């Protein structure tokens, strides 16, 4: 007699995780993002010092492993004696906060516009699609710069500026998926059952358009962090003494020749964070939606 073992097919989460973990880069990205989130949330406990505390006796101290450095300040100090490591850790909090704010704002607005355009079609579609085209005609950073200049410099304003730039991407993506879904039988069935338009859009259709949006939202984090840092670097984002990475870079420009560490570390932090989100986004894309695989 043979033992016939029937195994239940893996649930959606198990299946997703099975795909995701096979991509080593994606897992690495996830680990980095989790570590960064931990550091960002518990910045007050993890950072050795207050990010604004000035140690006047230790100005422009090099990193610990370089001659003249001290393990009291592992990554050295900046031009007014603030601990680089503590500032970078608090910067992680700011960058992730910006990422979260931008993705939430642009996702809500973009999905709403995309749903309206895709579901109703006709004039509302034309109007929304044209408006998105206008926003897309401007290079992203230029548009963000103009919006940031209008709102005035600042962390939250920079986040709003970057959100404006990203909205069209979500709107287009949602619109395309909604248009593909709205003619399906299950939507007609829900409509016949008496579902309202709002219910059809939000409860019936939207969950079926989620996969590409999740991928895009993850990648949106990297765009947001990168563009907000660029705005900070140009003086249009967070203002000193805020330990935002781009702002830290621009205020230490004059020390480029004397103290490489004040310029190198903030940029490296940006690169690692953005890279981690991109790795994770690529992995999510492969795991969630094989059709999107490029």
């Amino acid at each position, binding site marked *: 007699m043979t033992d016939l073992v029937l195994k239940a097919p893996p649930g959606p989460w198990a299946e997703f995780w099975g795909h995701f973990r096979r991509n080593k880069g994606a897992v690495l990205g996830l680990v980095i993002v989790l570590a960064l989130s931990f550091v960002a949330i518990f910045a007050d406990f993890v950072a050795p010092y207050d990010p604004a505390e000035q140690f006047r006796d230790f100005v422009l101290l090099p990193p610990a492993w370089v001659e003249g450095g001290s393990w009291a300040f592992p990554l050295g100090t900046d031009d007014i004696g603030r601990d680089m490591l503590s500032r970078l850790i608090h910067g992680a909090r700011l960058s992730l906060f910006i990422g979260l704010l931008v993705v939430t704002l642009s996702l809500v607005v973009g999905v709403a516009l995309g749903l309206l355009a895709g579901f109703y079609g006709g004039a509302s579609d034309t109007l929304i699609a044209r408006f998105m085209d206008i926003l897309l005609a401007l290079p992203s*950073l230029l548009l963000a710069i103009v919006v940031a200049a209008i709102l005035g410099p600042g962390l939250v304003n920079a986040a709003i500026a970057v959100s404006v730039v990203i909205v069209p991407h979500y709107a287009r993506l949602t619109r395309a998926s909604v248009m593909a879904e709205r003619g399906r039988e299950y939507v007609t069935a829900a409509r016949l059952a008496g579902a309202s338009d709002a219910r059809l859009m939000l409860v019936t259709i939207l969950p079926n358009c989620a996969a590409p949006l999740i991928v895009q939202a993850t990648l949106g984090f990297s765009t947001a962090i990168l563009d907000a840092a660029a705005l900070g670097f140009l003086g249009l984002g967070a203002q000193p003494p805020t330990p935002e990475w781009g702002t830290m870079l621009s205020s230490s420009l004059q020390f480029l020749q004397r103290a490489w560490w004040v310029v190198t570390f903030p940029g490296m932090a940006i690169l690692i964070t953005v890279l981690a989100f991109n790795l994770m986004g690529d992995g999510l894309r492969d795991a969630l939606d094989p059709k999107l695989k490029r």
Partner: protein
Amino acid sequence: MLKFIATRIALLIPTFLGVTLLAFFLIRLVPGDPIEVRLGERGIDPARLEEMRAQLGLDKPLLEQYADYLAGVLTGDLGRSLITQTPVLDEFAELFPATIELSLCAILFALIIGLPAGVLAAVKRGGPLDHGVMAASLTGYSMPIFWWGLLLILFFSVILGWTPVSGRLSAAYYVEPVTGFLLIDSWMSEEEGAFLDALHHLVLPSIVLGTIPLAVIARMTRSSMLEVLGEDYIRTARAKGLGLFRIVGLHALRNAMIPVATVIGLQVGTLLAGAILTETIFAWPGIGKWLIESINRRDYPALQGGVLLVACVVMLVNLAVDLLYGLLNPRIRHAK
């Protein structure tokens, strides 16, 4: 085909109007009064202030200001810079060649490295070379280019002293601007060594600006090449006993190039956005640096004109890419 072209051009008109509206109103919203900025902190006689506002048309209702503006735009008059008093279009025309020159060199750099890297990665799929190219391209794609530029300056200019830190040409040379493209002008001029000097100044900014396009091109070439290499006619070519070089170079690359060409065209927006940062870091006298300076000086007309012109450039290049793609691929042309 004519109908296809006409539709595409007609579609641009509402976008163009929208951009003028956006440029106009966005810039009116910028805080700070341009006249006060120009006159500095000193006090001014209120009557004189009113007179100046009237002179600049700033006292009219907003809608009328917009109508005036649009009428001007359509006749090529984008107003004058509040700071230098030069027509905005002239300023743009003078600075734009510097940005084009930089962008062309950047895209050339991206192509020279990105194409072979993508092809090699596809041919050696799954090997260490493939992984290396993919890792490098993802890193390049994630690069904060303003930081990347600083690192390159630190290494090549400050430590090694190989390349100049900023600008387009050393002060020792003077080249009469004829075309505005310094490489051409200095080549034609009598100045000994000016061409090499200009070339020297171009190297680092081109690498910095070309980094993200390079990453995109390498990735796109790889995936497009992989797709083509799986086609039947490649198998036929292999079966005929053709060498790998001939298959890849002659048969596969040509077809793999079509999507890559589109991607290159769509990099124009990325390039212009990157130019803002690159030009700021390298003090490159192009429109990117000019736009940032205009914002800081609250030079409304210059910013307004610049934003509009940049948007037009992006729209026109996208149109050209669209048309080219329609020409190459009949399926696009006849789709509704």
